[in-house]
């Protein structure tokens, strides 16, 4: 990967996506360097999931292009792992945890080739990493929400990618699992991977992530959290529906009023 280190891991230019005649993403640009944890935040309907899906070629954009390490996604699939929303699959499907994790290896296997011992061992290793090793043989319908999410993460880990896209991995998981996921994200970053996470909890953005993309159909701001995660940008992204409690006691980058805590007001 030496020749790729000076290229951005993800390079999105002029991405526009529409459902029928309604724009869901409008002219979005984003460059993400390798080794960065990036949160995508924005209100409901801001196009966060759509952004990920169009990068992965699951939705056809009206305009724009996406490059992964300088080349189109279709030629770089092996470098990219994807964790869809937990609710997007049928957890009553007759299969085991280990089997689901092995699906992460199908991409490198390609058509017709069957998973073998290597794939099995990789899957078991990934389950070990997410603390799910003893659930390997379990039917997936018997998992709790947190365990389902860990299974999905293990499936992404066996893809052994350079870039990870995760759609709301913290959705409906308990505090222990959230902690485990954060540790995992940091470990991935430590190994030089880029991780893009659709995230909902504004409070934890500064703690968990180093970059943030504020999105509301358009790109509101993107860059290091300390620079762009400001009250003003949040207000622009959420349209004044966000209440802030001023920060105190924590070291904030000089000259920015990055909020320690921001909540979406109920109602």
């Amino acid at each position, binding site marked *: 990967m030496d020749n790729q280190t000076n290229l951005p891991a993800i390079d999105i230019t002029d991405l526009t996506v529409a459902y029928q005649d309604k724009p869901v993403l409008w002219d979005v640009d984003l460059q993400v360097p390798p080794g960065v944890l990036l949160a995508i935040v924005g209100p409901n309907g801001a196009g966060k999931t759509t952004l990920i899906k169009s990068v992965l070629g699951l939705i056809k954009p009206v305009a724009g292009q996406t490059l992964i390490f300088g080349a189109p996604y279709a030629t770089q699939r092996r470098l990219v792992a994807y964790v869809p929303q937990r609710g997007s699959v049928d957890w009553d499907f*007759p*299969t085991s945890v280990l089997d689901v994790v092995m699906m992460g290896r199908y991409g490198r296997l*390609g058509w017709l080739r069957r998973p073998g011992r290597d794939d099995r061992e990789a899957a078991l290793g990934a389950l070990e990493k997410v603390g799910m090793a003893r659930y390997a043989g379990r039917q997936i319908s018997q998992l709790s929400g947190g365990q389902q999410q860990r299974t999905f993460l293990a499936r992404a880990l066996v893809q052994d990618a350079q870039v990870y896209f995760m759609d709301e991995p913290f959705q409906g998981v308990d505090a222990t699992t959230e902690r485990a996921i954060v540790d995992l994200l940091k470990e991935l970053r430590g190994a030089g991977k880029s991780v893009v996470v659709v995230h909902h909890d504004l409070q934890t953005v500064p703690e968990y992530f180093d970059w943030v993309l504020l999105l509301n159909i358009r790109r509101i701001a993107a860059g290091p959290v300390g620079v762009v995660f400001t009250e003003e940008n949040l207000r622009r992204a959420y349209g004044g529906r966000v209440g802030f409690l001023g920060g105190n006691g924590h070291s904030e980058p000089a000259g920015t009023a990055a909020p320690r805590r921001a909540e979406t007001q109920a109602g």
Partner: protein
Amino acid sequence: MSSTYLEIQLIAVFVGVACALPGVFLVLRRMAMMSDAISHTVLLGIVLGFFAIGSLESPLLVLAAAAMGVLTVSLVEVLMRTHLVRQDAAIGLVFPALFSIAVILISRFARGVHLDVDAVLLGELAFAPLDRMDLFGFDLPRSLVIMGLTMVANAGLIALFYKELKLTTFDAGLAAALGFSPALIHYGLMLMVSVTAVGAFDAVGSILVVALMIAPPAAAYLLTERLSRMLLYSAALATAGAISGFWLAVALDANVAGAIATTLGALFLGVFLLAPGRGLLAQARRRAGQRWEFAQTALAIHLLNHENTPEMARECRVDHLQYHLRWQPEFAATVVGLSERAGLIQRSNGDLRLTDDGRERAQTALVYN
């Protein structure tokens, strides 16, 4: 047993297994009713093919029928994509439209040919051995050869594309992201269902194809937690249904296809009630057990909460449970009795004390994991 009986049973088994295998994926993809639609609309393909070719023997008819099956699926999807019609309604609109055109065409232009509406709807398995062909010097019923080939082809294709079918059925999004084409697999599966339906409705009629495609997989789904075994059980149930259905028909002197569908329905019902783990009976038994188990845990937690507190003497008594836990006296007495027997508590003169086991039970129940 005469060779005719044997041949009919073999045909029935081949039809059953050929239908049950792709049926597994229809059930898992929540597309069960699509099989009903396809098994009817392929008739239009056959009729149009017959008019074009002028023969009912040509293998090209299968192509015409399969094309019509795929057209059915596409039309349903086009309707759904407008977001004005849901899937079930879309199926209910498309298939009667295409099927009724076929019925009109047959009754108007093809009277007297082998294509008659009764045979199409109900099949003629009992007469299947009459239509024979020569294969490598063996004189075999045409249906036997066709359905045997269909069954082998279906089993082979599913074995070959097992990984792809599993992935696209479970998580189409990931499949597409990994570079597999869910659409290709989807239409491949629909093509398989269409071709199978053509062969199957010759034997059992279009109404009952859906029974063969759905009942065995639906029952197998309740019996296992692994896809590979679901395929296996589905094929086994189809075989059992085909053979016992045939003998039911012989005993009742009734339509074979109807008897097979009835048997499959009965098999499903049996599994539905009796399946270990997921059957209704097992569920009811588990739920009843859980109620008592939970009550014992609740009692242990209650005692733990008040253990070594000033109000212990008042709270930890049998006659207080009805105030604190809102339990009827008889229910409380039973739970206390069960807990005592399980070694969770000790009783002396109406005072209740936790044993070490009971304390552990209460503590583990309170830990969130």
